[in-house]
């Protein structure tokens, strides 16, 4: 097949435009209605997130407080345990003359 035929058919298809006049009628109105519906859905999400904020803040404070209190004790216990262990090693070393 020659290029000429291909070019001609391609050009013909390019020139053949679908008639969209029927779709154009009221397209702005339909699209704006969809955009408004979309916008109304968006605030619902943010509103819920905003409503949840105090509960999340309270949870954060409670968790932080609990970690602060229990975390300090845990640290002290861990240091004591480590020191005690080292003291034992030191004592064994001293007694055995190493």
């Amino acid at each position, binding site marked *: *097949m020659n*290029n000429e*035929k*291909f070019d001609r*058919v*391609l050009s*013909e*298809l*390019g020139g*053949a*435009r*679908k*008639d*969209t006049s*029927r*779709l*154009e009628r009221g*397209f*702005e109105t*339909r*699209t*704006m209605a*969809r*955009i*408004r519906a*979309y916008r109304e859905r968006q605030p619902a999400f943010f509103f819920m997130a905003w409503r949840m904020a105090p509960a999340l803040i309270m949870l954060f404070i409670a968790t932080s407080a609990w970690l602060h209190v229990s975390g300090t004790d845990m640290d002290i216990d861990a240091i004591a345990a480590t020191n005690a262990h080292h003291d034992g090693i030191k004592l064994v070393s001293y007694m055995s003359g190493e």
Partner: protein
Amino acid sequence: MDSSGKGIPDEQLVVMALGGDDRAYEELIGRYKRTVFAITARIAMDDLEVDEISQEIFVKAYDNLKSYRGDAPFGHWILRIAANTCRDILRKRKIRPTSVPFDKVEYGLADNRASDDTRDIDALHRAIGSLGVDDRLLITMLELEGKKIKEVAYILKISEGNVKVRAYRARKALKELFEKEADDE
């Protein structure tokens, strides 16, 4: 905005729409609906899908309006969104519309056109449907819609050189597919 809004530049309408003026965005839709229809009508299976995809494009554009910086005409920017949307739709579509009959009435072809011509156009239509998604978009923009290389480069977010190389390959692939389709008839 006044009831017409005809003389207002696109960039100003964008600013107004961002400020909550719905009529400004409605005016933008009115200005570019045909540009969008021209692309979606080449991709969609029927009128209902043309309407659906076109609406989706304008909703996406509205959602991303803040990102429009005015560095390119609004028409090119909306076509970039249209191309991305069409690409997603074509990739999601399980069955490519290779068997969609070319509707000679809808496309306004003369009824007395020789049947050979109609068959050729039908074959080319199917060949385009068999192309890869990116090649199909490229051919649609460049060859069917007559966009310039610079415009296509912006719309598809590739360099002008890349457009030329890809267009050459896509055209070659399309020609081979067309020949195959024409021979099968």
